[in-house]
Structures are given as structure tokens and as C-alpha cells.
């Protein structure tokens, strides 16, 4: 079983340029100053590359709504990874 949360954390660290960044399932845009709509572009690019998945327009839109958390992203990735076998 992949540790998706840990891999997502590695992506966040890379995109935000902060090697010590720690995120959890409850982390949301409210907790990270730099996590804005521009940062989402970089995050989605890096997530797609790191996990070898393609995010649909609707999924990207969902993830950018208010109160979305890292947990929502992790759940989505786990579903997509399971579906692709």
C-alpha cells in the first residue's frame, strides 16, 4: 500500500520550496500562506507527474473550492490509483 499522504507531503515540500513543511489530512489553504490559486497550478502539475494520473477538470475544480483539505486530495488520489490498478 502506497503512503499517499507522505508522497503528497513530498510534493508540497517541493512546490512550496520548504523542506521542513509538515502537512496532515486536515491541512487546508487556510493553514498555508502560499497555498493560493496560483500555487494550485504548480501543485496539480507536480501531483499529476508524481502519481502518473490525470486530474479531470471537475476534480481540479473540486479541489480548489473552499475548505478543501489535503485529506480530500489524498482520498481522490487513492481512488484514482485503485481504479488504474
Amino acid at each position, binding site marked *: 500500500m502506497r503512503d499517499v499522504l507522505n508522497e503528497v507531503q513530498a510534493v508540497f515540500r*517541493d*512546490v512550496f*520550496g520548504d523542506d521542513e513543511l509538515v502537512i496532515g489530512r486536515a491541512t487546508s489553504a487556510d493553514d498555508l500562506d502560499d497555498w493560493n*490559486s*496560483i500555487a*494550485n*497550478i*504548480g501543485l496539480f*502539475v*507536480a501531483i499529476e507527474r508524481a502519481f502518473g494520473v490525470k*486530474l*479531470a*477538470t471537475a476534480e*481540479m*475544480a473540486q479541489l*480548489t473550492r473552499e475548505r478543501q483539505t489535503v485529506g480530500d486530495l489524498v482520498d481522490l488520489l487513492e481512488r484514482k490509483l485503485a481504479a488504474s490498478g
Partner: protein
Amino acid sequence: MSTGTERTALLDAVEDFVVAAPAARQAAFAAALKRLSSELDARPTEGVEAIRRAIRRLADPALDYNDAQKLLRLHRRSIAACARDAADAPLRFAILGNVTTTPLAGFVELFLFAGGIEAEFVETEYGAMDQQILDPASALRAARPSFVWLACDRRELTHVPDARDDEAAAARAVDDELFVWVARWKTLHDALGCQIVQNDFTPPPWRTLGNHELRQPGSPARFVRELNRALRANAPEYVTIHDVEWLANRAGHERWEAGRYYHLAKLPCMPDALVDYAHSAASLIAAHRGKAKKCLVLDLDGTLWGGIVAEEGLGGIRLGQGDADSEAFSAFQRYVLALRERGVILAVCSANDDAVARAPFQEHPETVLHMDDFACFVANWNDKATNVRAIAEQLDIGLDAMVFLDDTPAERSLVRRCVPDVVVPEIDGDPLGSIAILERNRFFQVVSLAPEDGRRTEMYRANAERVQARQVAPSLDAFLKSLDMVACIAPIGEGNLQRAAQLINKSNQFNLTGRRRSAAELRAAADEDGWLTLTMSLTDRFGDNGLISALLARADERVLTIDTWVMSCRVLRRGAEEQLMNHLIERARAADFEVLRGEYVPSEKNGMVAELYPKLGFASMSAPTDGVQLFELGLDEGWTPRPTRVREVNA
């Protein structure tokens, strides 16, 4: 600027990235950024030059989106930590259009910096293009940017025809659309005097009419094609049409089209393509500012042909028809020749005996390039760093105007370390790969072509011959007399506007004030009463030098002030500047001016004219204020023209 051999841990890390194999690139980039970051933490004011150089070399148009963002962050940190070059006010640019400008503007700023231009992005309201253009109180109008990029795409077209429209209706739609854009250009330019970069348009990546799409007059693809043609045909000189359709074609429409990212964040193209898109736009601005490269320095064995001519002989080198490898080298030579024909100066830098190196260009039956294609030919056994410097000196161009192409990694590394201002792209000995690398970096970007461009190598070579003639001439005066120089002095007008603008924007050494002027600003000055404009064209017995000097003077009561004066370095020390001054003084006296004033703004490169005004008889008026040194010449007392060997004829 540092001139010695550069070796710091930072530049070593950058070098590792530059030479990295594709699979190792990402890791090498991360390592270099880490170095750069700790360098910024450790000693932000020391090693500023190494930090700047590192950022310039890491700024590659092929970076992916996130890597480019990381580099941009460090670039911003370095600007905060290291003082800007105080000499230049930053160039201000704005981006208009229904796009998210933040990442785009950041990348443009980064690539302009890499190209030697400190730039500042002017924030404007998102999307409100026409309000920004039309409202005299808008943020755009207030900021007065010198470049405005209309970064629009097909979604901003307002006269799209119906797919079933006939030929006439579709043509009307193109006309109506064209009118909207021409009006925007004119309003912007009248209000700001700015240079405009206008995107052309890219058809949608789908064809609802299938293969029939382009046959149908009213189809989206046909409309965009006709509109792009109309935009180019109607663009005035202050508008540069940015060939975005070509970028999309090269990337492939499916990879270019933003789709998800457009709907999510109004990105004009896929994030990874955004880096190259910004590089393309930045290259246009840089070329306008005279920062395009001027000279391609070429190695021979393994670069212009396959094999080693000294060992394999004329018949042994691979060039011409027969096998794939030889044909590829011919193709590369044709590409290089085409660059020469449109104004890139070619030079050879080869470790060879001179006669051996020349032979293929003189005797090989299938050579595309010949000796007279090169402005400078250096084949000897000195190290290449020394030779590259010698070439720059002989051609009288800056090191930062040169691109050095060599298939041998050690030579590239040597030149990169010892002559760091010269750009040294990584090539792998595949001649077609060399074309791709030169293209990808847009070193020789073109924003306009003047008739002189095609003859540049000829003119530079003629100059080299003049230098030799000077060595055998018995005295300088006799030499100048033997040149049989004829000058034609004329005001700036339609016929010489482009060339004058080019000269003003490219000259660094004989440039008294460093002020850059767009063609549009020159046209305005030429038409205005308060300005006197002069250009000088010069021929001599070796050939036509073309337009070699431009001067702008502004009138204020009885004082005439030389605001801008540039001259091509090819014709220095031949009396042309004295002759132009004689002409100006006569004109000023005839127009009853009492004082002629000269301004000198020192820069890193124009030290050669620091003493020009005193030499021409002007008196120094003051210590420099605001970086401007003033000189004056009284026009009322008796004055006799300075003797020159330049004969003036009427325009």
C-alpha cells in the same frame, strides 16, 4: 564585471546542470538551486556577480513549470538581497488580456534578466483590457510602461463569423475584427508611446468541420488564419506580432491547449508550455532593446563538417550528398548561411593550421559556406578562450553579443569559465541538434529587417580590411584621404527610420547618453518642431557602410541640446564624428541658436566617448549631476569647421 577564470562552488553546480544528460537534468537543477539558495542565505552581498550569472545560466526555456517557479523565487530573493544595477532604470512592461498574468509576468521578468535587462511588471486589473486602454486614469496609463503585451487568445475575438457564412461575410468579419485591434494599438500608442507585442491567434484544437475546416470561409480555423494575415499586413512599426500559432504548432495543439487550466485558472496554455511562451515574448522585448546576439562563432571539425580535416583530408571529411551524416552537416551549413544572409555575423574559431582550416571553404566541391561568409577567421593553436576574445576585439563587438558553438565539451567548458559573458550552448555533435538548440534559445531573435542586415558580414569584413590598410598606410591622414569617404547627412524620415532606431537601440560604445528610442518615438521627434534630427550614411572605397550615425537634438529657447548621439563602431576615428558635428554647428548657427550643449551619461560600455565633447571643442560645465555630464559650445563667436577627410554630398 569579472574577467578572470570563474570557479566557485555555485558556478560548478550550475555547470553540472548545463552539461547534464537528460536523465540527470532534474537532479542537477535541484542541486544547483540548493547551492544558489544557501549562497543567498550565506553572503547576499558578496559574490553578487556569481549569483547573477548562475540565475542567467539556469534560466532555460526548456525548464518545466515548477522548476521555473523555483528559479523565479530565488531570482526575486536575489533582487531583494543584491542591489540592482543602479545605472539602468528597470524596463516597465504590462500584460493585457483575459489571462492570469502572475506566472507569465514572473517568467518574462526572469528571461529578460537572463537576457541582460532588469524589468519590472506593471500590475493592471485582471481582464479589463479595454478599460485599461481607454481610461486616462487607469493603472496602465499611470504606470507608462514602455512595452505592452496584448497576450490575448481566440476567446477574446468579438467578430467571429458563423461557420456557414459565405466568403464575403467572412471577409467582413475579418475586417471588423482587425479594426478593433488596430484601434487598440493606436489608442495605446498615442497615450503611452509604447512598443506593443500583439499575440496572433491560434485556432481551437478541434475541427467540427473535420478535414473540410479550412475550405469553409466562416470556419474558426479559416477565420483565425485570415485574421493573422491581416494583423501582420496592418501592423505599424510600433507593433510586433508575436507568432503564438507557431509556438502552438511546435508544442502540438493538444499539448499547447490549456483546456483544464484555462477553465480553472485562465492559463493561456499548458503550465509547462508557459515557460517557453514567456521566453518567446521576452526575446521580442530583448531584441527591441538591442540584446539579441550578433555573432555566431563556429568551430570547424565536428561542428561544420564531420571528421577532422587535418587528419582525413578534404576528401575524408563528411559534408555533402552521399550519406545521412554528410547531408546533415550540409543542412547545418545552409542554416548558418541563412543566418548570415539576414545579418548574423559569422566567425570561425578553430584549433588548426590556418591553411588547412581554410581549404574546405575554398576547395571542397560541396561546401555551402565560403571564406567571404566569415567576418573573422581565426585558426591557430592558441586556446579558444583567448581566440574568442580576439574575435570580439577584431569585430569590435561585446562578448555578450556572441554565441560560441563547438562540439568538444572541454572547449565549451573552457570558454564558459574563462569568457563567462559569451553564451556557450551545449551541443552534442549532431548538426541538426545544433539547429534545434539555437532555435530553442532564440539567440538571434528578429523584430525587423533593414536592407543593411544582409550585408553585415561584408561590412565587418571590409572593416577588417580597412584595419589592415591602416597598418600599411604611411600616415593616418594619408590613410583617411585614401579611403575616399563620402557622407550623406539627412534628417530622420520614413526611409531611414527603421535603421536609425536599430542603430540607437543597438549601439553601446559610441552612445553618449544610452537613451533608447523606438521607431515610433523617432517618428514623433522627426515631425516635431522642437527637435532637430540627423543621420549620416558613409561610403568609402571599400564599400557602402550604410547609415552609421544618428543624432537627436532638442531646442529650448536659444539652446540646442544633443539628447542622443550614436555611431557605429565600424567607422570610428575616421573623422565622421567631426564632420557630423561640423554640419550640426552650421545648422545651429544658421537657426540662430546661441549655445550647443552636449550630454554624456557614463555607462559600463561607453567610456570611449567620455572625452568626445572636449575633443570637439566643448567646455565642461559641471561635475556630473544625476549621472549626466554637461558640455557647452558657444555659437556666437568666430568658428571654423574642423578639418576632416570626409566629403559631404547633398541628400
